[in-house]
């Protein structure tokens, strides 16, 4: 299991488009994927779940992956965050 804390650096926060990107990327992997934000924990492969977090610019999330390809999953997702989901 990998845990990785990450900050949202794109101005618009995690709106519909980034949420879709994350979910679509995560579903490719076999590992389980959860995202934790303060007291909320959701399934990172569910679009409604990810949007429910309403994670705004500057907020922190914890990505949790568990499975055979957890390393690659986290790597791809983290990269998306760092690239600001292609925004700005």
């Amino acid at each position, binding site marked *: 299991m990998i845990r990785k804390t990450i900050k949202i650096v794109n*101005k*618009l*926060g*995690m*709106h*519909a*488009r980034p*949420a*879709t990107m994350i*979910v*679509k990327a995560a*579903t*490719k992997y076999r590992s389980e994927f959860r995202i934790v934000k303060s007291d909320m924990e959701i399934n990172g492969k569910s*679009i409604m779940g990810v*949007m429910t977090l*309403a*994670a*705004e*610019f*500057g*907020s922190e999330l914890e990505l949790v992956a568990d499975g055979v390809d957890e390393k690659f999953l986290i790597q791809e997702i983290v990269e998306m965050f760092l690239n600001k989901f292609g925004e700005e």
Partner: protein
Amino acid sequence: MKKISVKEFYELEKKDLSLSLITHPNTMQGNITTSFLNRPGLALTGYFDRFEYNRIQIFGETEISYLQSLKEEVLYNNIKETLVYDIPAIIITKGLSVPKQIEFLANEMMIPIFSSRLSTDKLFNSIRIYLQGIFAESKTIHGTLIDVFGVGILLTGKSGIGKSECALELVERGQRLITDDVVKITSKDDILVGGATNNYGHFMEVRGIGLIDVAKMFGIQAVRMKKRIDVQIELMPWKDNMDYERIGLSNHSVDILGNKIPIIYLPISPGKNIAVIIEVVAMNHISKLFGYDAAKEYTNKLQEELTRKAKLREKQIEEKK
């Protein structure tokens, strides 16, 4: 190019357009090749640039009264020059009487003249509707057409994927079948209309059973003849890595005979109730027509919350300083 012979046109439409042939029957030799009509107005004065001679020429009160105002030789010459063109047919409206010279020249030059009792306006409309039906572009495609809550849903997908079974379940839920397996689509006035290719009735093949008659089995309320096609749904086997629509913000469309209609790629897998999902597609479509887009509504709310929270956070950081 599509065409219809003038003879056929006359035989089929003489009742509806209350037509009678003034010239000799032998004059009906040409073909109608376009659904457009023309009022020759300027051509009769001798101006032939852009004269649309290949259309049916309609002589209304304006044309006739102009011709009657002409001196005999002028009238003869002008008409002769006009009839030199390969005109499929001339129709005189309101049962107006035709100057004798015109009738004579038309017989000579083998151009049929019909007289109609309808007014010019009415005749224009009726012929246009009739000819548009004939000249409308059409094609047949492999699929099933169902009317779901008034929304015409064209179901497509590989054979054996379950289009017919899905249509059957929709019919059982009170929706109406237009045709199964082969849909004839016609494009008319920017609207796609689908129907069956034959008039045998509403038969359907169900794998393992054979042919069934939907109208006999479920009653006449379960079928209809034609329906405007509003949405296409492509059924496809579920694949793990397929890029399915998740929110519904991006709308895909497909081009059928030059008309764009929305298309939805629907993954199916055992245990999924496709009929219910199709009803949802139809209701969502109606909802959007009424101006309510659930995907937009939700994402707008999310965006508002994100902006509000980001501002709040900024404020808190400043206060700490």
